[in-house]
């Protein structure tokens, strides 16, 4: 195991733990996207570049976007230009 692998795996564990520890949903989604990016680099070091492309596009891109769209739909994050004062963002 090279130094790079060790660093990447350590970041992976940190990301995996902090996703579930974080209280803020927006933060945990962003950490999850970071997890996918690190995972795609690990796929690259494991000589699976096609999986790396898919992981970067699906895991970091599309899944995170869908999570964000869902959060916006349930008003868990404040939308830009959202003038509806009754829908306070959920702080949890």
């Amino acid at each position, binding site marked *: 195991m090279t130094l790079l692998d060790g660093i990447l795996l350590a970041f992976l564990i940190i990301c995996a733990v902090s996703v579930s520890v974080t209280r803020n949903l927006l933060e945990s989604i962003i950490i999850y996207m970071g997890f996918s990016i690190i995972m795609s680099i690990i796929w690259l070091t*494991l000589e*699976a*570049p*096609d999986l790396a*492309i*898919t992981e970067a*596009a*699906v895991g970091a*891109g*599309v899944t995170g*976007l*869908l999570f964000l*769209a*869902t959060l*916006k*739909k349930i*008003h868990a994050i404040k*939308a*830009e*230009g*959202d*003038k*509806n004062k*009754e*829908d306070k963002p959920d702080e949890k």
Partner: protein
Amino acid sequence: MKSDGFFSRLNSFVEYGSMREEDLTLSPSEKHKTIDTDIPENRWLTTVQNSEKPVGARIATWVSHRGVEIFDRLYRVAAAFICFTLIGVLLSVVAFLPAFGDEDAPAVNEVVERYVSKSVEETGTTNAVAGMISAYRGFDTLGEAHVLFAAACSVIILLRVDDPERRHGKLVDPVMTGEDMDFEPNSDLVLRKAAKVLVPLSFIFGLYVILNGTTSPGGGFSGGALMGAGLILTSVAFGFGRTERFFGDEMYHLVKTACLTAYALMMAYFIYMGANGFPDGVWLGIPGSIISGGLILPINIAVGFEVACTMYCFYALFRKGGL
């Protein structure tokens, strides 16, 4: 209060102790009585409700006060115990796994040998993974494409807005409706300038990955995901009007069904001719050039466009309830 379930009762006990709203309006003696007689609705309590300090009621109060706490603590301890046990078991299993790239690993058997040694000759691809996914195990990949199709269908069933006026954002009073889909994406300058560079790149890279799926890593799914991400980026940065111009409902149905039908027909022909290793009358091309691999290149193109459509369809349905 009588009609409430046990859990809401328990919750009110946890939050307010034994004080409830009715208790405040009663005189102290009556209050005492109601607390004693009214706490749990269990039948066994009625036998002791007249005594001054009913044991059953005290036990019940204790359970509802302390029992929840104790259960909470036990729950946390048990959850941590199970987590750490699972981590230990999995780590000890990992210690017994063969090393990465080990020749003696049980996964390296005659199937892998056949794929590695014969795939260039039998499928015409220099990318053995593409040959395996689209030719040797093409039937699996066909199933996966149909899983994607079913997923897109169920998302459409769940999230599609039936009213076409609402769907296209023509009902312009977002403050009145409060619905997220009525807000046009309010993109900023940085996003638009970055998207101007990134969108063509992601489309070209996606097409490159699809077309070179037979000679280099990648293929239909990866390239399609890249193109879908490009479509989503376009709609985020420039608004849905830009993508609706060329990608509406009809276009989606046309591309999706055409790609899936073409894929299924090609796969049916491939299996009908005997599948792996049998001559199926399709020119395999020169291994290493772009037009090679026989049916794999058209299969990759079909899968790629289908995946791109599905990705964008998911996003559009989540965002505005229609394509």
